[in-house]
């Protein structure tokens, strides 16, 4: 995926990317990195990933599940789902307005 000239390839905050990934079901750290790279073209570093996971956990937007085969999966909470929904609504509004203005310019 080519890098976006506006953002250098980072379309959203790591927290948004993680919540979007977890919207598809629980995942552990490495699976999150792979999924995010696949759908957003962003390769999150481990420091960034776990910093964001810790913040999201601290705000109760995600929760850690029991360890499965030495790996701990994370799942989105209902609060996280609501937060992501609200964030995406704002993004969709910006996208809609941007497209409309581009079409009329």
């Amino acid at each position, binding site marked *: 995926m080519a890098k976006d000239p506006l953002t250098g390839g980072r379309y959203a905050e790591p927290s948004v990317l993680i919540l979007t990934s977890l919207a598809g079901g629980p995942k*552990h750290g490495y699976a999150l990195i792979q999924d995010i790279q696949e759908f957003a073209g962003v390769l999150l570093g481990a420091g960034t990933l776990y910093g964001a996971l810790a913040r999201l956990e601290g705000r109760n937007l995600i929760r850690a599940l029991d360890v499965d085969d030495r790996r701990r999966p994370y799942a989105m909470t209902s609060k996280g789902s609501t937060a992501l929904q609200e964030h995406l609504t704002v993004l969709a509004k910006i996208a809609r307005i941007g497209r409309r203005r581009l079409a009329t310019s």
Partner: protein
Amino acid sequence: MKRPGGADRELGWSVRLLLGSYPRWWRLRYDDEMRDTLLALREDGGWRRGGCCDLLRGLVDAWLHPTHFPTEHRMTDRTTRFVPRAAWGLLLFVLAGSAFAKLVEDPPFTAAARQHQALSWWGDALVVCAVATALVMTVATLPSFAALARSRSGCRVRLPAPLVVVPVSALAVSATLLLARQVADGTSVHRPSHVGAFLALALVTALGGIASTLALVRVATQVPEEPSIARSRTAAMVATGVLTGLGAVAVLGWTLTAEAETPHLLHTQNGLLATPTLLTVLIALAGLGGAAVLCGSSAVGALSSRGAAQRSSR
């Protein structure tokens, strides 16, 4: 969650050092996961050259913003969580203050200070702030050391080897370089060998300072917060917040006085290392300002945290 023996070695010493330098509460919760993820990234070829920078950024974030992270894993003591910010602020104060002292040690500056009393006064004010900060920190750490000596609450201080080895090595290298410089004839820093020795000294000093600060924070956060320790920590953070602020004001005053009274002093072409230029003084001033912000914000945080604790106990 134990990995196969020796698997960690594949991560490399720099990654292991960075992971070992995360706060204890972080390592208890995320260390195993991060190691597994990093190993998987390496096996998969997803490890980037900037991976260490990313880990370093996460490390600084975890130390500076513990309040952003899950409460059940971070330090529970009320004022202890502001210790890392104050400690890094103090390190910045020491480095920037030393840099400023190095910049103004040349004869033209000492002569200017003799001629213009205000320059001398501002310089003395910075020294007084530095000495008072050192005294405050010494007094403030006594209750913690007493608690450690008594080993109350099953307190066990564990320091990773690098945090002890690095400061000692840094001191040894500094001593060797100083000796080498003494043996070499001449004292002019314009000689390439002396410039190299100076830069190496600055580097090992910075590394030693970073390792010592990490060790200080590690010890401070492992000491249980008894009332006397909490009081001394808060008092020390307030005092250092005020003193580092005054230190920054002293250097600002020195700079403005030098510009007003002897403008030629700061507009020389003698090089960045031997004689200060306005730019180098401003860099030192920015460092002192940053130290004042870090120490000041930790003081405000500690005070408001104690205020909230007292209100909730009523």
